[in-house]
């Protein structure tokens, strides 16, 4: 078995989420692989655009919904530009899933607090769906910080949850930075769940049952420190703070060395030991956040 070999997957659907992000729904061409393919929320795959290169991307669908999987791809570099040019029906290569993923079983019967910033919504959507579908979690909170109305990923789903989330034990809150008529409409319609500000502003006025809550964070590098401070101020144990991190993962299997972080006492491969880490690990591995 060559771990660098990728498997054909057909693009079933492409949905434009924002001017920069597209949602690709995929299925493996080989039905056997399709049947065997499963993953944990928080894991990622390596996308192979043959003849052009590979790049890692987190899975944003949930393993509870079988027969397909989804990738939310932001057009930021050379490879993602190629990806955005693809059409429905095209075939790409996929290998994975890689990484450890979130410990969904360990968190059962607890509250989940998902804190997402920007594109960090993609891997956390996998957790959100998983939690909603399985029904094994108490209260689910989603705090989502976005730049503007146009940048809200999975906008339909977010608005649906703003409207009907409470009935599913799911409380969604949204913070935006750039004002626009659409945002003001949202703010009026869903006060106080939508506000202008950054994601940490969403903690205001929320009572967290710290004994019984796990926090799951994903966002741009700058976000972690602020969100973690907010959680620690509320006395959440570091072991209950999970975060999923980004690095330059080339191989995905702990060989190429690009995603190594840490110092002489603790070296971690983000692709193999992560990308999900607890805050305890961040305390003992310098450079993790």
């Amino acid at each position, binding site marked *: 078995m060559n771990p660098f070999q990728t498997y054909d997957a057909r693009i079933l659907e492409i949905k434009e989420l924002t001017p920069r992000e597209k949602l690709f729904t995929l299925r493996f061409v080989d039905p056997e692989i399709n049947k065997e393919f499963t993953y944990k929320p928080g894991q990622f795959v390596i996308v192979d655009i043959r003849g052009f290169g590979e790049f890692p991307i987190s899975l944003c669908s949930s393993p509870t919904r079988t027969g397909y999987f989804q990738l939310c791809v932001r057009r930021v570099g050379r490879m993602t530009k190629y990806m955005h040019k693809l059409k429905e029906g095209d075939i790409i290569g996929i290998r994975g899933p890689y990484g450890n993923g979130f410990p969904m079983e360990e968190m059962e019967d607890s509250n989940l607090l998902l804190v997402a910033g920007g594109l960090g919504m993609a891997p956390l959507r996998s957790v959100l769906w998983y939690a909603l579908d399985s029904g094994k979690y108490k209260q689910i909170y989603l705090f989502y910080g976005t730049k503007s109305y146009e940048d809200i990923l999975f906008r339909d789903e977010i608005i649906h949850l703003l409207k009907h989330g409470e009935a599913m034990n799911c409380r969604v809150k949204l913070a935006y930075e750039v004002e626009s008529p659409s945002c003001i409409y949202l703010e009026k319609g869903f006060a106080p769940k939508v506000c202008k500000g950054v994601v940490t502003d969403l903690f205001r006025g929320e009572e967290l049952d710290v004994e019984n809550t796990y926090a799951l964070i994903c966002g741009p590098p700058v976000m972690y420190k602020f969100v973690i401070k907010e959680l620690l101020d509320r006395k959440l144990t570091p072991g209950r703070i999970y975060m999923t991190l980004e690095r330059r993962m*080339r191989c995905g299997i702990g060989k190429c060395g690009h995603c190594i972080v840490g*110092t002489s006492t603790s070296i971690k491969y983000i692709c193999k030991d992560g990308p999900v880490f607890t805050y305890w690990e961040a305390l003992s591995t310098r*450079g993790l956040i």
Partner: protein
Amino acid sequence: MRYVKLPSENFEEFFNSLKSWGTVYAPVKQGNIYSFKQVNTLGEVSLNYTRTMLPPKKFFVHPKDTLLKLKNGRWEESKEVEKIVLFGVHSCDIHGLQILDKVYLAEPIDPYYKNRRENAVIIGISCMPDEYCFCKSLGTHFAMHGFDLFLHELPDGWLVRVGSVKGHEIAWANESLFEEVTEEDLKHFKEFEDKRSASFKKHLNKEGLADMLDLAFDSPVWKKYERICLGCGNCNMVCPTCRCYEVCDYWINAYESVRVRRYDSCFMETHGLVAGGHNFRPTRLDRFRHRYYCKSYFDPSAGFNCVGCGRCDEFCPAKIEHVKVLDEVREELK
């Protein structure tokens, strides 16, 4: 371990017999440097070499390595494996290969590396340290395993340690060339090792090294060397344990493409750069320090990620000395 003696007069015949096990590569002097090259006769080999510029890792992780070939829209595995005999590998380099084994043979196994490892015979040779060597400090100056045969110099031949089944097979096939080891041979062997042990000029203080470095994250020594370091990545290329690689796809023609990996260096600005422009190690300071942290990482099961071969010192155009940097960091912390 099985020990046999190879008398000097049989050495050449033994060397020639190795060709039946694969293409023989051995250290050859080229100008001022040594290099593992294909050899046909013993005369071409520099037995008293100090160190080659590129370590033997080049045979297992090629500087430029084709992983997959795209044919008719499908990736095909590139499966060319050559049977080789690496003759004259020093102990530190054998340890270096074992560190690479830990990475490439961990699950999921890298099939290219594994194939090449399985198709290679490693014949070690004893050596004398020069001013750059500090393998003794790291315990890599003597190889207990990781070789098929290891030749230790005696006044009238070689004491041969047989380190693997393949080594036994080679010794078996050449049974007539070997003799029993005598008490005197053992005496000479011990004398050589004692002399060698006393010849090291450079010592690395590895006591609490990993913790010491971790505490010295903000040491001014890093900043001093950041200004001296050229960021060229030479130290990575010549290091027997550096293994970072980059992957690229190339088109051969309109229908065929290859996926190639090549050596990468953590001194390159692109090493920690992700799409979107965020760099997790944006400054040379970050990158310089990272290399020292990576090399001095201590794994309880395998030791440090450095084998003390001295290549990074010898081939550093800025004359930065690995041990000196670590000593200065330690000194600054006191």
